[in-house]
């Protein structure tokens, strides 16, 4: 019965030449609504036919006030959610709060070269060399991959996780001279790619006077470069790295390399500092 009346209604509406979304919505109603609908059918039909099925649509007006609500200390943490987090947090805190080193100054990021950038590219070579067993000429990272600076004072495992949360592995790439040239062009253009093992001068927006291992860059030579597997795969627009003639895994996560470097410095009674010798000279 209900179905039949719906059909009639539908036919009549169709005949009026309008596509009424109305009908579709009726079919979705729960049964009790359909019954009520039937009772009021006479009224409904009249109203609809008189109205000649003018389609009615919901129109939305957005309110653009207060569209970002700060989640700050004025909001009490939900106790039940806290209870779910608590056992996880306990495990994380234990592992993370171990102090592994001391930095007299914070190591931060900057354009071209920086304490943090120099520290990371240098330790990439230092920690990979023994595992790789052959000379590594160059080292590369990007500011985008270094997620947080290392703070001044005690450094704990958590700080290193903040700096390098990713499970990126170190790889050694073999690059021909033209690819190395492209890499330096990139470093100058982007200003966010610290390079270890080399010095260069930025002149008129181009890299000049490139020295690798203290020797002038030779475009006819191949060079080895240690970096993360992420960047080696063309991450951060480093597409030229995909032209590597050889890719070899070091067998070490970048974060583990950083942890190891800091632990070794501390064991040797040394603070966590970056090499501050100028590597990039920017000519006005």
């Amino acid at each position, binding site marked *: 019965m209900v179905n039949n009346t719906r059909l009639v209604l539908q036919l009549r509406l169709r005949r009026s030449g309008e596509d009424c979304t109305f009908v579709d919505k009726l079919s979705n109603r729960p049964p009790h609504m359909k019954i009520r609908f039937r009772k009021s059918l006479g009224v409904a039909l009249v109203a609809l036919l008189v109205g000649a099925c003018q389609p009615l649509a919901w129109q939305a007006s957005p309110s653009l006030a207060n*569209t*970002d609500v700060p989640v700050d200390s004025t909001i009490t943490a939900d106790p039940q959610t806290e209870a779910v987090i608590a056992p996880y947090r306990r495990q994380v805190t234990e592992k993370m709060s171990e102090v592994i080193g001391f930095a007299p100054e914070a190591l931060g990021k900057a354009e071209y070269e920086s304490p943090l950038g120099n520290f990371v590219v240098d330790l990439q070579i230092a920690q990979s060399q023994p595992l790789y067993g052959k000379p590594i000429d160059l080292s590369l990272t990007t500011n985008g991959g270094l997620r947080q600076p290392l703070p001044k004072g005690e450094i704990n495992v958590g700080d290193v996780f903040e700096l390098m949360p990713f499970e990126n592995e170190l790889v050694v790439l073999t690059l021909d001279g033209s690819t190395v040239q492209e890499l330096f062009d990139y470093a100058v253009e982007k200003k966010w790619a610290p390079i270890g093992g080399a010095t260069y001068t930025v002149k008129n927006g181009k890299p000049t006077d490139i020295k690798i291992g203290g020797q002038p860059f030779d475009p006819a030579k191949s060079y080895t470069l240690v970096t993360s597997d992420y960047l080696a795969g063309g991450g951060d627009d480093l597409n030229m790295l995909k032209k590597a003639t050889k890719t070899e895994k070091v067998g070490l996560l970048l974060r583990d390399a950083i942890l190891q470097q800091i632990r070794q410095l501390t064991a040797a009674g040394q603070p966590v500092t970056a090499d501050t010798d100028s590597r990039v000279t920017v000519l006005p």
Partner: protein
Amino acid sequence: MKRRDFLKASAVGAAGISLLGFPLPAEAAQSVTLTILHTNDQHSRIDPMPNDGRKYGGMGGMARRATLIEKIRKEQPNVLLLDAGDIWQGTPYFNFFNGELEYKLMSRMQYDAATLGNHDFDNGLQGLQNQLPKATFPFLIANYNFGGTILENRFQPYKVFEKQGLRIGVFGLGIELAGLVSKENYGETQYIDPVPVAQEMVQELRQNQKCDLVICLSHLGYSYKTDKIDDLKLAKQVPGIDLIIGGHTHTFLDEPTVVQNAGGETLVNQVGWSGIFLGRIDFTFNKKNRQKTGVSALVLPVDNPVLTS
């Protein structure tokens, strides 16, 4: 208080429908409010940002967000809670527990849907598959083809939500994975140009699914100077999306950007990262006669919101 001023349309439509006496809530009501709450790029920030002098230090925290959402749910009848991807990666919680806690907490907060960000592939397709059972909400993604991978047929492109009879279509778009994610982590997942996909989604949601509002969860990024597709370009090129909830670029916007396009206008919003802010946009729906007030009859200038006190 800021607000955007809309032209007032004839109330004949709204009055007419009430005469029918149908009990369906939305059709009986003169207006219905829908509250969209959203996050993006949470990056495993379970606890508030360390308060060590860094920007936004001490802000965020998922247990606080749970309180805030609960409070809004008590005040508002129709809430949709959405996320635009990169739930994972950024704190040791992810490194040690592989995203399990993030999904658990989002499920407790009753997220309605999320899309996939590039970092959600950081433990590979297998890592994603392992944690999906912990999420009670769907991941919507329309422009990744998982055919031939272990995640084939695991995701829907869109979902239609009903609130008081209103139909809200939500679909997801992801960023190109090559260059952002290791090949071994995304495997044979294919990225499809988001523009034609979004056009299809709008068509499907508006025509076939009869949606009153269309929302895109996008991890494309807010804006690039290059040709790379972003939320602003998408909004311009694909009419028919009411709201793009964006991510990836960690963009903090004071208020949504309004983009004019051939079909009217699209709002683009993004709330930075790490759950420092909870995005909120309330839509008030009024029944209007479609013939009398086309979408184009909407509003006053968009890049100059009217300021009233």
